[in-house]
């Protein structure tokens, strides 16, 4: 263990000792979290799951839990919900009622976790940290130790929520290097349906550390469409541990749109723990400069007749680096599983780099599993064809990049989100 890593770990343990007592509820859980983190420390390159992701830049900065002194005025433009959705917003990890508008049907509950911790912690106890357990990965443990706010969404049996629920996590620009630990808990009972959009946004130049944990429980035949749009500052560090539990016939569709952050790491796990559960993970990462984006997915087929599809696509420019590590586990009981995984990458520069790694662990004999990965450049013959018709080189490149990413963008159901993403890649690809 290097000296730096030791100090980095001790820094967070020290912060916990200093400020932890003031954190609301779940004292034992927090204690378990920090102890686990203290035992593990930050992962190092020796661990297989971290072989391609060097955390040295993260460990060099002593981030402190955000003090909540940000001036929300800098986000005034976002106040009225850009997605015309039911919106719950956070600034530097703290619930920001001024930017939130919740108009809920009976029985549906969307509330700030801080309020739940304060008034009724028993309400979330059956689920909180049951998936992202305090004995899990060090980032989830760190979040569990420090969590002080976030979202609790409860959809009772049969509830249909017509509008998307927008979770907006804003990071402000201020002097201190700060850390936030957003926590999201979604519980959808039998046959409930909803769509959630989680946006992580930060201003240029903001050097902060977002360490999010999202836990999703889907009851029988529940359906959740979850889109994550990560547009953190290019100086920021972004981590998310997403854990999904699916009962019989539950349907989970996820998009991970990753455009921002200096270093972004996504650890996604879905457990298909009931017959006929269906899980679809889409990913789109577009990075440039020295950005680093890492998606680690695990789809755990535990019961028969489950289906899962994964399609992750990346566009990398500059010295950017992308990692896709997709594990599919098919347990002995999970006969008739159908699992498909694809990762495609487009490199726009000679210095961009991609590591892609499928892992299949199949313990059942009557299953269909397919995986494939590609890494390529813009096709010179196609570029010439477009130019020979009068289309300029920059426009020809833009057309082809657009065609590459549209396979993912077109699958985003929410119009507002889709056009928002469209605007983002337009900006990035303007430089292509």
């Amino acid at each position, binding site marked *: 263990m290097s000296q730096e890593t030791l100090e980095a770990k001790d820094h967070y343990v020290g912060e916990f000792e200093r400020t932890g007592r003031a954190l609301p509820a779940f004292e034992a859980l927090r204690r378990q979290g920090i102890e686990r983190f203290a035992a593990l420390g930050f992962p190092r390159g020796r661990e297989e799951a971290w072989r391609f992701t060097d955390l040295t830049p993260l460990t060099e900065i002593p981030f402190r839990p955000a003090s909540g002194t940000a001036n929300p005025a800098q986000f005034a433009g976002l106040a009225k919900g850009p997605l015309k959705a039911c919106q719950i917003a956070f600034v530097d990890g703290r619930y920001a009622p001024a930017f939130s508008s919740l108009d809920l049907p009976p029985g549906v509950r969307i509330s700030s976790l801080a309020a739940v911790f304060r008034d009724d912690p028993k309400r979330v106890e059956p689920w909180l940290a049951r998936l992202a357990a305090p004995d899990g990965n060090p980032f989830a443990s760190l979040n569990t130790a420090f969590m002080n706010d976030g979202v609790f969404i409860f959809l009772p049996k049969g509830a249909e929520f017509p509008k998307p629920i927008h979770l907006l996590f804003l990071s402000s620009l201020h002097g201190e290097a700060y850390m936030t630990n957003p926590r999201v808990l979604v519980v959808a009972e039998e046959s409930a349906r909803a769509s959630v959009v989680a946006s992580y946004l930060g201003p240029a130049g903001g050097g902060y550390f977002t360490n999010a944990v999202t836990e999703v429980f889907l009851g029988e035949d529940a359906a959740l469409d979850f889109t994550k749009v990560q547009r953190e500052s290019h100086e920021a560090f972004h981590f998310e541990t997403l854990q999904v539990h699916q009962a019989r016939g539950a349907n989970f569709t996820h998009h991970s749109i990753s455009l921002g952050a200096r270093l972004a790491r996504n650890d996604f796990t879905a457990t298909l723990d009931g017959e006929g559960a269906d899980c679809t993970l889409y990913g789109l990462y577009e990075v440039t400069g020295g950005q680093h984006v890492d998606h680690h997915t695990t789809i755990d087929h535990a019961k028969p007749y489950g289906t899962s599809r994964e399609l992750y696509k990346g566009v990398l420019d500059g010295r950017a680096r992308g990692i896709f590590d997709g594990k599919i586990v098919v347990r002995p009981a999970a006969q008739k599983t159908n699992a498909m995984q694809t990762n495609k990458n487009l490199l726009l520069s000679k210095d961009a780099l991609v590591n892609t790694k499928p892992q299949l662990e199949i313990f059942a004999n009557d299953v269909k599993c397919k995986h494939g990965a590609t890494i390529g450049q813009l096709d010179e*013959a196609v570029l*010439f064809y477009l130019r*020979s018709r*009068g*289309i300029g080189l920059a426009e020809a490149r833009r*057309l*082809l990049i657009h065609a590459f990413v549209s396979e993912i963008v077109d699958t985003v159901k929410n119009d507002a989100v889709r056009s928002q993403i469209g605007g983002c890649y337009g900006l990035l690809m303007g430089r292509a």
Partner: protein
Amino acid sequence: MLEIRDLHAGVGDKPVLKGLNLRVGPGEVHAIMGPNASGKSTLAHVLAGREGYTVTAGQALYRGKDLLAMSPEDRAREGVFLAFQYPVEIPGVGNAYFLRSAYNAIRKHRGQPELDAADFLKLLKEKAKLVQMTEALLSRPVNEGFSGGEKKRNEMLQMLVLEPTLAVLDETDSGLDIDALRVVAEGVNHLRSPERAVVVITHHQRFLHYVVPDRVHVLYDGRLVKSGGKELALELEEKGYAWVEKEMANVP
């Protein structure tokens, strides 16, 4: 319209064109015929500006301008069109969208207003009828999953929409059945006008039944070794390229 003077060009270090001369006037259709590996496709690609081909000597003037100094897109914007022998497939880019981008890029270059999607679609459908392209093919990604004949008809559709001043057809007739051949030929004939010129590069004489050329040239070993009227094509058909090779062998 087009004047090629002593053109030497090759692929990498390998010389292919070895002093080619050609003059094409407005309103004329020229056919260039030749055996395999005589330099037909190299000529087409050099005129369109494809990377990987090096011009070592000579020049090509298009309406008095140095064609070889222009970027591929500028050649197209100035009115040069190449119908590809092997049109590429472009997954994810709709055929109509692609054509409108090209059409408007050329309009913009000429200082003309761009057409919106609705007006362009009207124009596109009219032109599509001429080459018997279905509307389904217009909305699909460019050439993706098209048959050989559909790809060639799509080349002709692009030509009719972009209305070039100089069209170069690189073996557009190869691999076509007789019906598709007629459709492609009709496309070319539709484009013919006193202001426009067409260079048809072909291996077979058959296509020239339908697109009757003003001049026929034989390309052999990188040079035009024989030129004549349309009857030269018939003579070639009858005697084969071996005849030219034999004649060339007799030249000291």
